[in-house]
């Protein structure tokens, strides 16, 4: 879905999606990113140690590392709280 997302929301989507090893093209397609931005985000997450790179049959696969657990958990906690602690929309 092409919605306006913050970089942190995109990071979270990538990290959640990469729980199983993924190709860069799969990440780009699933997270609805253009290849340049997608590559930048993946490289950033790799530099933070949140994504690990493995090579399998000449293909580069990215997998979320245990180091990303803190980020993923904090993100979910904060976003669920954000929704829970706000007034409810009713007609």
């Amino acid at each position, binding site marked *: *879905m*092409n*919605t*306006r*997302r*913050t970089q*942190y*929301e995109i990071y*979270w*989507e990538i990290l*959640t999606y990469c729980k199983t090893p993924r190709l860069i093209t799969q990440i780009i397609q699933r997270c609805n990113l253009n290849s340049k931005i997608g590559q930048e985000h993946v490289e950033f997450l790799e530099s*933070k*140690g949140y994504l690990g790179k493995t090579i399998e049959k000449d293909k580069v696969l990215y997998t979320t590392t245990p*180091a990303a657990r*803190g*980020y993923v958990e*904090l*993100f*979910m906690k*904060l*976003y*669920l709280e*954000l*929704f*829970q*602690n*706000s*007034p*409810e*929309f*009713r*007609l």
Partner: protein
Amino acid sequence: MNVELKATETKIKKEMKHFMALNVMSIAFGGIALALAISALTVNALALKTTDPTTLLNLFSNIGISLVVAGLAFWFLISSAEVLSKFEEIQEEKNSELAPSREKLTERVVKLIGLYREKKPQIRRMILVSKIAGVCFFANALIQAVMLVQNLNAGSVAFAPAVGGILVSVVMGAVGFFLPSSFHKYAMCWDERLMHSDDVEKKILSFMEEPL
């Protein structure tokens, strides 16, 4: 699933149901407004056979107003359909799961916040256009009522169709005010969430800056 998560899921479901209803109502409103504008346009265009300059001027001004209303109603209809279409994508994902996990609920919140970020300017314009339409329908009802009273004395008007026309305008005027007030409530809820999401971002940023 724990109690807190269940409460969040219920809240999300309820909000999505209410927003869906609001969108369906606004599509119906836009459709009826468009139909009324086309009907007025046709009636006035067919009456153009007259040669009386005053009547012609009236007819042309009516045609002009009908065209503007038809254009706005069409824009409103398309805008509502666009918002609904984006919303449906999230709704379909929601319906596909029986007991969504913490991760799925977060994903839904992210998508709903993204939808609001994307459609915020469009929703603001829809609130404005709907308010204007509400005022116009009420004004139309008032004009029709005054004309009915004037023409009743002269005995030159059918009472039932005239009252019917007034009622349609009053109902459309009321809906025209109800829709923006509901969209405004929706915008208020999400504006508050967006405001707090800035703090969330700061917390995430400071977490990311901490050494591993």
